[in-house]
Structures are given as structure tokens and as C-alpha cells.
């Protein structure tokens, strides 16, 4: 059974279409990363799933039950959906215990609270107030609070955006492992493509209110179905088969096809007979990234070990690394 089913969900604010005909399904224990540039409608979609905003059309099902559409509109407090915000939104007037216990309505409240604090590694923090916690601790309390009522689905809206970068990766891994431990299905919204690749079982890329592509992290990165997805998910150069050298575009694609190559797909040898020129070089710590100007008109980037430094202006012959393939991008994008 699917944890969540969206079918043709749309929402507009005045004249602006925020969410446009979105359909997707979420597996029983699946973690879906919803990624896209700011203003693409991902937060609005999340708010609609939570019941905080009614969709204009379409249906939303949670655990097999229709919560929006077909004449139904279930209130947020009756959806059994957990929500974690960027600013954590802990109740400042309540202790950690009372925050986590806020949504526990039946049975052994104290036991459940203790269990949740144990889960997020904050045993003994129960009597503190939110302002006495660090950013990472607040994040974990917010997670414990959302999980305490045993939600059928967890929604996370940019949950790591307010944490400083050093802390971020660690908290992110902790959260992902807690979600996998509790086998809670989750949708989490982010604008950071690396985060979406790292945490999601699947990644849904949103653009202007629509889902541009939804697939595994590997396929979204390496087999984008549109130029937008290709460029948004990572650094990409676009070349045209037949115009640019076959060493870069392959020789089995019809002329005129646009292909994507990522900087790690490309290598080059310095040679006076080369068909490209190094225009600039950018130091990235573990590597140098070179921008190459092709004689045929195109431009691409190539990363190379930091142990080697090649001067700007050097003539080079670029080609695909062995095993890497150019990715054809459909023209419609």
C-alpha cells in the first residue's frame, strides 16, 4: 500500500500557479526528497499534503484514505501527518518533555516521550526549554515531537537549512537513519541538490509547479530527462552531436542531438594538435576545474587532480573518460 498518493494536485495563488497537476506515489517505507529552486512550489505541495492549505483540484490519499478531493477535506489535526520545519517551531513556553508529548494523546505519554528522546539521543534533556538547546538539539527535538504520535507520514520542510554547514551533514545522516529505523515514510523538501541525492530513496525535481523528473538519485543525476534537471542537479555542459567532436558526443547519436557531459566525465591531454583551448582554471580544493573552449564553438568543463596544474592558454584534446557516456537530452526541454 502506498503511504501517499497525489493525483493531479494543483494550487494557484491569484494568477500565479504554484503547483501544477502534480501526481506521485510514495512507497510504504520510502524517503522521497523533493528538490527544486526556491519558488518552485515544493513547500506549497508539502502544506497541501499536511492539510494546511486546500488544493484547488486533484486528490490526496494518505495510507489508502482520501484526505482531499471527492468532496472530502480532512483537517490537518486528523491526518496523522508529522511536520518538521526549518526553524523547528518548538513551543518556546514548553519544556522538551512537553514539546515531545504535545501530540501524544493516548496511553503512556511519559513512556513514549522517553522513548522518543532516547531515539534521537537526547535522554536527560526533558526538563530543558528550547532556548537552552543548540541548533542541532532543537532539530532532534522537533523530529522526536513529530514522530511521537506515530505519524503515517513525516513531512520535513528544509529541515537542515538553519543549521551551520559543519553540523548539517551529521544531523542529516542522523535524521535519515532515525527515519529508516522507525520505518517512517517521509517527504522532505530541500533546495540543495546534494542533500536530496544523499538522503532520498528517490528524488523528485520540481520546476515551476510541476515535477520535472522523479527517479532514483543515480538516474536523476546521470540520466536527466531535461536540460533543467541536468543543470539543476549538478554542473553540466551541453554539446551538440555532429557539431562538436565525436570524442565528446559519441558517434552513435543523430546529428543535432543535445548531449550533457559533467566535468568528471571529461578528461584531456595537452597537445598542440588539440581542438580546444584552456580558457580558465578554478581551484576547488581536491581538484582543479578547467573551462575548455572548443574550436567548434562549444564550451565544457573538466575536473582534474590537484596534483597537476595546466596553464591557461594551453591547447588540449578533450575526450570522454573511459566508461563515461554522453547523455542525450530530449529536445523539448
Amino acid at each position, binding site marked *: 500500500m502506498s503511504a501517499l498518493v497525489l493525483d493531479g494536485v494543483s494550487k494557484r495563488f491569484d494568477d500565479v500557479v504554484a503547483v501544477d497537476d502534480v501526481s506521485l506515489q510514495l512507497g510504504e517505507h520510502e524517503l522521497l526528497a523533493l528538490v527544486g529552486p526556491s519558488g518552485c512550489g515544493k513547500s506549497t505541495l508539502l502544506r497541501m499534503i499536511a492539510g*494546511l492549505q486546500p488544493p*484547488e483540484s486533484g486528490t490526496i490519499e494518505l495510507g489508502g484514505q482520501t484526505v482531499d478531493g471527492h468532496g472530502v*477535506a480532512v483537517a*490537518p*489535526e486528523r*491526518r496523522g501527518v508529522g511536520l518538521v*520545519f526549518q526553524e523547528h*517551531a518548538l513551543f518556546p513556553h514548553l519544556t522538551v518533555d512537553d514539546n515531545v508529548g504535545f501530540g501524544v494523546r493516548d496511553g503512556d505519554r511519559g513512556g513514549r516521550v522517553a522513548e522518543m528522546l532516547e531515539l534521537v539521543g537526547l535522554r536527560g534533556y526533558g526538563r530543558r526549554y528550547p532556548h537552552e538547546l543548540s541548533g542541532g538539539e532543537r532539530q532532534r527535538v522537533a523530529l522526536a515531537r513529530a514522530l511521537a*504520535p506515530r*505519524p503515517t507520514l513525516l513531512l520535513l520542510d528544509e529541515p537542515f537549512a538553519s543549521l551551520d554547514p559543519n553540523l548539517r551533514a551529521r544531523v542529516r545522516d542522523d535524521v535519515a537513519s532515525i527515519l529508516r529505523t522507525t520505518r517512517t515514510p517521509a517527504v522532505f523538501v530541500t533546495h540543495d541538490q546534494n542533500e536530496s541525492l544523499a538522503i532520498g530513496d528517490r528524488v523528485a525535481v520540481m520546476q515551476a509547479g510541476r515535477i520535472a523528473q522523479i527517479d532514483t538519485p543515480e538516474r536523476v543525476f546521470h540520466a536527466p530527462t531535461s536540460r533543467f534537471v541536468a543543470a539543476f542537479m549538478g554542473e553540466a555542459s551541453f554539446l551538440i552531436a555532429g557539431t562538436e567532436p565525436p570524442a565528446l558526443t559519441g558517434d552513435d547519436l543523430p546529428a543535432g542531438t543535445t548531449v550533457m557531459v559533467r566535468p568528471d566525465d571529461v578528461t584531456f591531454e595537452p597537445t598542440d594538435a588539440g581542438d580546444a583551448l584552456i580558457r580558465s582554471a578554478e581551484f576547488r580544493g581536491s581538484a582543479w576545474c578547467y573551462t575548455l573552449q572548443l574550436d567548434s564553438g562549444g564550451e565544457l568543463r573538466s575536473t582534474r587532480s590537484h596534483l597537476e596544474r595546466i596553464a591557461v592558454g594551453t591547447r588540449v584534446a578533450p575526450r570522454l573518460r573511459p566508461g563515461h557516456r554522453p547523455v542525450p537530452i530530449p529536445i523539448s526541454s
Partner: protein
Amino acid sequence: MTSTSWRPSSTWGWSASAIVAATLVVVPVGMLATSVLSPSRDVWAQQWSTRLPGELVTTAVLLVGVAVGSIVLGAGLAWLVSAYRFPGSGTFGWMLILPFAMPSYILGFLTLSTLGRTGPVQDAWRSAFGQDAWFPAVESLGGAIVAFTLVLYPYVYLLTRAALRDQAAGAYQAARTLGAGPSEAARRVVLPLVRPAIAAGGAVVMMETLTDFATVQYFGVDTVSVGVFRIWRGTYDRDAASEIATLVLAFALMAIGMERVARGRAKFGQSGGAASGLDRRVLTGWRAVLATSTCAGIVLGAFVGPVIQLSVWAIREQTGNRGTPLLDQYPGYLWHSVQLVVVTVVICTLVAFVVANARRFGGRRTTQLASRAIAVGYAVPGPVVGIGVLLATVAVDRALGRIGLGLPGFVATGSLLVLVYAYTVRFLAPGLSAVESGVGQVPEEMTASARTLGAPPIETARRVHVPLARASLFTAAVLVGVDALKELPIVLLLRPFGFDTLPVWVYNLASESRYEQAALPALSIIVVALLPVYLLSRRLEGSPR
């Protein structure tokens, strides 16, 4: 397929309550306004041939005089304490808002009793310069203008100071760095920036002046508001009173129109910037003396002097050899005031909380409209609210009578219900704006978290919004309570027979020139009214956020 907008989570109930509250506020004013559509010629002919022309002229002169006086005094003092340093400038910064605690009907009788024809000052004057020595007539339009100006200028003062602090300081500094001297920067940058605030203050001052019909009567000044009161209390002719009250409404609309014109198209928001206020110039020599004595004179004349005089009278009255017969009556009047204040505070705070929450839980647009409509109540002068509420309750009374549920004489004799309704119409707005700002500061995410954790709107309001907006609920209760305690015009107009509050008692005693006996109740009103002044002064001194 079309989407459904039916949300069984009872959120529509919140919007509906907000609309009901707004309707209850607007209906009385609306009913009054529509009474113009069916004018009774007799009333107009009779009024027009007697008092009305004079009342119209007097009202216009009084309003303009008080507005000009308050703007000169309020804006001038605001500039003085914001732009200069002189001995006591910091203390005067907050002391200058003390007159807020002084109801006009108290300063009015104090002015007459001390400076009036039979007062000690004129006595001394005459004994020094002869029986025919000239002295400005205090029982006059001019005297009323001065008295109103002294208690109402703080509105202009406060708004101007806030504008100077939030908006003008950064612009002033920018102008100085662009080569403008202090006076040029003040004229070309500061004045245009604070003009909207001054205009708004002037409009509030006119509304407050228009609402009064008690103080002006001490001075023998007949305004349109006095006309309404006289017709209603004299003849209980509802139609006549409501038709004259529409003229009061017309004056109120004119005041709003004047504000719009004065403000022009300017509408300045908070211009950010980390400006730390104007760089205050230090005054020395005779300039410093003049500045200090001006501020001291105003504070002394409008607040400290009157309070000392009242204290002297109150003590003399209580310790005098005449005994203290009036002290026995004090608890009775106090009880009436407390009843009225408590009921009004509870209703207004509760309704304000519901409307503020409706904005969170219900339709945004409808509730926004509702809270704007509620703001109308505070902008409408007391006589208009009073007569409007009367019309509305009479209509309800008749409707009840028609279906056989009529309570005989329910409205005609007046009831506490009518009075509380009128108070709510008038004082809901300040309560609402306080509560709205408090609830508005609770992040949306907080509300959303509580909802998704299984708390329905009412529970979310109780467990999250109440504790987080507690301070604003308290502020609302204080603002509404003190306004209700001070209120005189509405209670004079609508009180049930024998239901006298502290202000009514003060007014009655002062009207009979029994000033010493009026001192104690007057002082108690002032003491309570200092509470919101204290809250205001803290906000004034607090750093801009």
C-alpha cells in the same frame, strides 16, 4: 472535477465569528447613517431656526483650534526632545505623555475652578488691578480649545516621536552627509517624512474632541455633540437625536478627509537602517532655560498642577470639619464602574482573541475585512456610537416584540446591555489591534506544528496562542479597561436610570461646582489611567525593533 471548499475542521466557524463581530460593530453606525435618507422636516426646520447654525460654526472652530494647537504643541515638543539635549530632556521625554491620563472632563473643571470668573486667580487679579481689570474669558470657546489641547496633544507627540525615531533619523543623517545643515535637513527631509504622522495625530485629536459633550458644557460651548445629547436626554426623541448625530458623523468624515489631504500621497513605511536616533544637539544658555521651562510648564499645567490641586481638595474634603458624607457613596459608584469595566474587558478581549485567531484559522480575506470594519468603531465619535446602538437595539426590540418575545420597556428605560454593547463597539478596536499584534507574532509554523500534532483550532489557540500572546492579551485588557473606566459621553447618553459611574459622579459634582467633593473620584480615575501611560512610556523608551 471541482474542488470542494467545505472544510469540516470548523475553520469556517472562525471566519463566521469574525464576520458576526464586525457586523455588530458596523450595524449601529450604518443604521445611523441611513437615517439621513428619511429626514423629518420638522426636526430640521426647528433645529435650523434655533441652535443648529451656531453649533455647526462652534464645532468647526473648536475642532480646527484644538487640532492646530495639538499639532503645534505635540509636534514641536516631539522635535524638541528628539533633536536636542537640555536639562531634563530625557525625563520630559516620557513625562510629556502624562496628560494622556488626564480626562478632559477633569482638566476642564479644574481650569474653570482655578482660572474661571469665581476662581482664586481672578479674585487675586481683581484685588490687585481693580474690579474692572481685563482678564481673558475662560468660560469661552478659547478656554475650551486650550483645555482640550493640553490633554490631547500627546497623541500628536507620540506619533511624531515614533516617526522621528523609526523613519526620519536615518534620512536626517543622510541629508547631513549630503551637505545640508541642521535646519535645512529638518525642513527638507524630516518634516516631509513625519507629516503623515502629524496628520494622523491631528485626525485622532479631532475625533476625541468631537466625541465630547461634557467638557465643552463647562465652558458654555455648544457643539453638535452637545446638541445630540440635549435632544436625546431632553426629549428622548430618537429620530431627532439620530438625525443631528449624522452631523457629528459628517464632521468625523471631514476630519478623516482632512488627514488624507494633509498626508497627500505620502505613505511611508518603516525605512530600515540602523539609525540610532537623531544626533541630539546640546542646548546651552538661555536656549536651554527656555526649552526646560517650556516642557516643565506643559507638564505642570496639564498634569502635575491639576493632580496637586485635586490632592489638596481631596485631603481637605476628607479631613474637613464638614464630615465626609460623600465618602459613603463612593463604593456604590465604584461598583457600577467596576461592573461595566469588567464586563467590557471580558467581552472585548474575548472577541478580539477570536477575531485574531480567525485570521490564522479561517479565510484570510474575510477576516482581514472584519478587523478593518471593527476599527471603524474607534474612529466614530461617542455620540454616534451611542445613538447608533440605540437605533440597533430598538430594532431588535421591535423584532422581538413582533414575534411575541418583547420585553416591555427593554430599551426605552435603557439597560446595562445597551451600554455594554456601545462600549464594545467603541473599545473593541484598540483591544483587537493589541491582540492581533500578539497573535501575529506567533510564527505560522508554530500553529501548523500544533495542528499536525493533532490539536484542533480551539486547542491550538488555548495551548499555543494564549501562552505565547499572553502579554498582548494583558495589554488589550488594560487598554480597553482604562478607556472604559474613563468614558463619560456614552454613559451619560445611555445609562440606565440611577446607574452612575465614577466619571458621571465627577461630572455631576463638577457641574454643580462642588469641586472639592469631585476631587477624590477624579483622582482615582487618573491613577488607574496612568497604567496604559506607563505601558506607552516603556514602548517609547524601548529600542526600535
